[in-house]
């Protein structure tokens, strides 16, 4: 069978199918809903991967975090106040024992702290940091000097300003060397941080002030524990091996026996990626299952309407056999109808699917969503397979009709 002839048969079939618009719509409804869900699922999966990529890029693949407090997510609500298990001594021990494998740093954040310069008031996040924090977090100093060991040792009242703070407090002045007040304590501006922009969660990274760790702990916040440690693994070591060593060391220091829950958590980018995938797994699998159910139900509906259509069109089939259609022609005609309908259902479904893809991020921004052409590719493959699978039986029934019987 040459291509032109097949094309003629196919267009004739499309004509036949859309002769009855209501029936055609019914036939493609299931496919449309299935493909719509599939488009949504593909969108979410793509969104998840995008978000993981962003986080990986943002954190750096060799960077990890150690959090104070036990490992259960269910305790998340209380951990901010209660988790006091990480001490400066832990940090020192990690540095001493693993100095060749990773760089460790600590930072204590406090949100919404009042700051003042002359008559300008503002609020920002204060980070009490050690000198290593800039290295681990890939920060650069744009002007002035960084916080050094000397500042930490002397509990110096110096600070570094993020770009947003500079904009708020020093609209048209050079801040370096100026005196600002953090919680009414005077600090000298030692340097400025190079802007980093916003992070994947949408926070302004430049809305911050850095002060020495010791100053923060003793003069500003009055705490003796660290909530978060960061570490950056050196090139030649594997992050997961280093993670295990950190775990062992901290367990030993905290006297945690085998089988007991740890009082700290270590998070690597791998772990976070896994966590995000797990969290969205239910919605993705559920969506996929629903879309498969919809496709199967849709396929059954399509098949039954097509079977009905075959019995309605017996005289037509007889006529076509009389004027020279072979059994294969009849088979291909009805199969084409099935494929045409499911392809149209797929196009409808992909467009319906774009609604959640573009709407959901606006309504629920925490659900990652991304548009991808894969949706079209999968939709195309699924609908062709569906059209063939559920079209074969009606097409066979049509082609098996004896012309004499059909014409009667």
């Amino acid at each position, binding site marked *: 069978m040459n291509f032109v002839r097949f094309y003629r048969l196919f267009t004739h079939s499309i004509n036949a199918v859309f002769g009855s618009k209501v029936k055609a719509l019914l036939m493609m409804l299931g496919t449309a809903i299935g493909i719509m869900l599939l488009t949504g699922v593909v969108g979410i999966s793509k969104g998840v991967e995008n978000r993981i990529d962003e986080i990986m890029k943002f954190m750096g693949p060799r960077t990890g975090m150690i959090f104070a407090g036990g490992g259960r997510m269910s305790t998340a609500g209380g951990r901010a106040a209660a988790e006091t298990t990480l001490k400066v001594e832990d940090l020192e021990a990690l540095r001493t024992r693993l100095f060749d494998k990773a760089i460790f740093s600590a930072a204590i954040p406090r949100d919404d702290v009042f700051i003042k310069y002359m008559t300008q008031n503002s609020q920002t996040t204060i980070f009490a940091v050690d000198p290593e924090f800039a290295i681990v977090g890939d920060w650069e100093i744009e002007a002035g000097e960084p916080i050094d060991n000397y500042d930490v040792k002397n509990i110096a009242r110096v600070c570094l300003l993020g770009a947003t703070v500079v904009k708020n407090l020093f609209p048209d002045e050079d801040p370096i060397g100026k005196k600002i007040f953090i919680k009414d304590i005077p600090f000298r501006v030692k340097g400025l941080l190079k802007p980093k922009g916003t992070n994947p969660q949408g926070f302004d990274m430049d809305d911050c002030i850095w002060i020495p760790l010791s100053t923060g702990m003793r003069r500003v916040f009055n705490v003796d524990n660290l909530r978060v440690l960061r570490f950056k693994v050196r090139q030649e070591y594997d992050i997961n091996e280093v993670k295990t060593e950190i775990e062992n060391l901290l367990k030993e220091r905290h006297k945690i026996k085998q089988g007991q829950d740890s009082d700290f958590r270590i998070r690597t980018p791998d772990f976070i990626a896994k966590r995000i995938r797990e969290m969205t797994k239910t919605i993705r699998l559920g969506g996929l299952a629903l879309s498969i159910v919809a496709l199967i139900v849709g396929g059954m509906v399509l098949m039954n309407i097509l079977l009905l259509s075959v019995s309605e069109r017996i005289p037509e089939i007889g006529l076509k056999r009389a*004027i020279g259609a*072979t059994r294969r022609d009849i088979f291909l005609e009805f199969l084409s109808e099935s494929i045409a309908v499911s392809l149209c259902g797929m196009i409808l479904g992909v467009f319906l699917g774009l609604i959640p893809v573009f709407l959901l991020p606006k309504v629920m921004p925490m659900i990652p969503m991304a548009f991808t052409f894969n949706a079209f590719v999968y939709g195309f493959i699924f609908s062709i397979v569906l059209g063939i699978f559920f079209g074969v039986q009606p097409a066979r029934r049509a082609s098996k009709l004896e012309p*004499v019987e059909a014409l009667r």
Partner: protein
Amino acid sequence: MIELIGIKKTYFTEGKETPVLFGIDFKIEEGEYVAIMAPSGTGKSTLLNILGTLDKPTEGKYLFKNRDLTELNDDQLSQLRNKSIGFVFQLFNLLNRVSVLDNVLLPLLYAHNYPKDAKERAINLLNMVGLSERIHFKPNALSGGQQQRVAIARALINEPDVLLADEPTGNLDSKSSEEILNIFDEIHRQGRTLVVVTHELDVAKRAQRVITMRDGKVFKEEKVK
């Protein structure tokens, strides 16, 4: 053109044998206009189906242009019907969802070679049957007589060797019947072979020769004019 030799047809249903044709012999020459006269229930439809290759005889030989059709397979017979036989049915059998023009072009859908001048040819045929004004109408907007004329144009689109008509006027009033029979006369004048199956004497008389069947056999053959 057509030669039937000892054609027998027996139906087997649920182990029961029902013989319908008991040995039919006749010849139809090229360019001839033949009527097959038979009352209903005498194997008329069966004979027509065999002539149209829609059904196979249980016994006997069917020579079409010196070729034994009983030896052809389903696909070969489909191709033969497409190229060499034009059908006209009592109930017209038009597709109501497509236009008159597309109905006429329908057999070309199954032709191996789609002629370049197909549309022109279809319009000429519709012109011949007097429907050139209605090519974009849907068949159900036409009268019975007009529908049958569309069916005749459709039967001729592939320039078949023979036109087979099964009670072509069976569903028409006498005026429309007359129009159809006049068109048959015209087709005959153009040199095409025509076989019309009917039980009406008025229709049969328009042919050159009438073959009368009775009880599954040829009862008599007579020249009309």
